């Protein structure tokens, strides 16, 4: 049988008065008073953010300062709470990046809807959207809590890029077909 019956010793008279248990409890709480605090004093002290943390979603630029998003709208479609709204636009003439064809004209993430699931980051074929370390955001109005494109780039900054996908494509197109 899986049940192992244990015989418990009956409490002694002293134990039944609860006094020894109370005294040991008092000892515990007294020692606890001199231990360092377990809490962070938040605005002054900040928690250490572990790698892989999913904070506020942001848009990033590549090391050359170009925007990576091509407004494919995959993130908009995958977003479970429908927090992302993208208005696709074209890449302006004379920027040297006309071959990318598309760039977001407007990119809004409603942070009142966002659930920080990170699916947008996972689905992005351009590695343009990242959930980074920012965890604290507040505002006085609902409108304030919608992050627009410029704000998203401001939050995102620049991240290292190992592909330079569009530079390679451009170079390949200029070099002509390989065969």
């Amino acid at each position: 049988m899986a049940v192992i019956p244990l015989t418990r010793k009956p409490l002694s008279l002293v134990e039944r008065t609860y006094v020894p248990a109370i005294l040991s409890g008092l000892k515990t709480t007294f020692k606890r008073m001199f231990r360092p605090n377990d809490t962070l004093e938040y605005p002054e002290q900040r928690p250490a953010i572990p790698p892989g943390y999913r904070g506020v979603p942001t848009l990033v630029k590549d090391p050359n300062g170009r925007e990576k998003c091509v407004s494919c709208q995959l993130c908009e479609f995958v977003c479970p709470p429908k927090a992302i709204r993208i208005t696709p636009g074209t890449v302006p003439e004379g920027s040297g990046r006309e071959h990318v064809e598309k760039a977001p004209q407007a990119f809004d993430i409603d942070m009142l809807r966002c659930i920080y699931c990170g699916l947008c980051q996972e689905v992005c074929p351009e590695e343009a959207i990242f959930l980074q370390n920012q965890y604290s955001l507040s505002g006085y109005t609902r409108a304030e809590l919608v992050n627009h494109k410029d704000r998203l780039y401001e939050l995102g900054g620049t991240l290292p890029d190992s592909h330079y996908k569009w530079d390679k494509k451009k170079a390949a197109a200029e070099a002509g077909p390989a065969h």
Partner: protein
Amino acid sequence: MLDLWNNLHPLAQGLIKGLAVILVIFPLAGASSLAERKVSAWMQGRPGPNRAMVPWIAWIPFLSTFLRRLGLFHLLADGGKLLFKEEPVPGHVNKLYFILAPVIAMMPAFTTVTVVPFGAYLTGSGETVPLILANVDVGLLAVFAVSSLGVYSLILAGWASNSKYPFLGGVRASAQLISYELSMTLSVVPVFLWINAPGTAGTMSLARVVEFQSQPGFWGGTWFVFLMPVSAFIFLVSLFAETNRQPFDMAESEADLVGGFHTEFGAFKWSLFFVAEYSHMLIGSGVFILLFLGGWNPLPWISLADLIGGLHRLTHAAAVVHPLFVGVLSIVIFLVKVLAMIFFFMWIRWTIPRFRYDQVMKLGWQRLLPLAIGNLVFYALAIAFLQQPV
């Protein structure tokens, strides 16, 4: 100075004494509430309140940081908030009694202070004179009689609130008070049996109890906590119950009755209940110290007179035997003991989970009361044997 005081009209004297009580007890109770927050924080690994600051003091370099960390100015912040908050009176309450309840809570809390001696000074002939606002001979009886009135405010608050939780809180408070009042009273009877030996003038005075614990010799200087540990224990447990402190917070029952009797109260009326609770604690601790922990005597077997005598031999200064110095010293010793007791109250509160209502009743009637009666019988027989006329 003393003549000027004695020439004052008795009414003026009473007024000044009353003001003194309010000016001492109110801040002490407020400080206790802050201490409660700090002690609970330390025991739970938190820093506790440590933000409030007064601009002018913030300019002092190190002291300001220390005081801010200690949370001292939260006392002002809390008091200010409670004083200036809107005073909501719910529509369904009995307004007169609703407003009367916190006022009644304060009255017994402040009245009992007058009969509690809080210090002593030595006259030229080496006689100890207790410092007390109203030196009535009924002493402890007055404390018991008046402090029990405090429960009326809880019942009144619970009933006048006209809602379920406060009502239950009020009912529980009254049941608890009745249950523990008995054991409490029985537990101190041995003390008074012992000090009222045959042939001496009978007294219920608390000052006399302290005097008895400051006699020379081994048996004379023994505090009653060593002579009558069971009495002290029963008195202490009943004291926790009488002051509605955890683990006996049946009147409040934060977990199951929201706030118990003060659920419908807010702002300053609520804070009056709070101050009354802490005043009861302060006075209860004071009475416990007078009865069992030697009152204003610094250590067991070392009385105040011994301490002053020792200091005088050491320094040969006339100032140490001056009544003013002795009086202040004795008050300081007494206050330190009271504050240590208040810390003990908080220590217990943040250590032990609260009892269920039926456990409170069972403990009161089936454990503490028989123990108190047995204790009384034992000491009555022992004292009769020891003090029988030869």
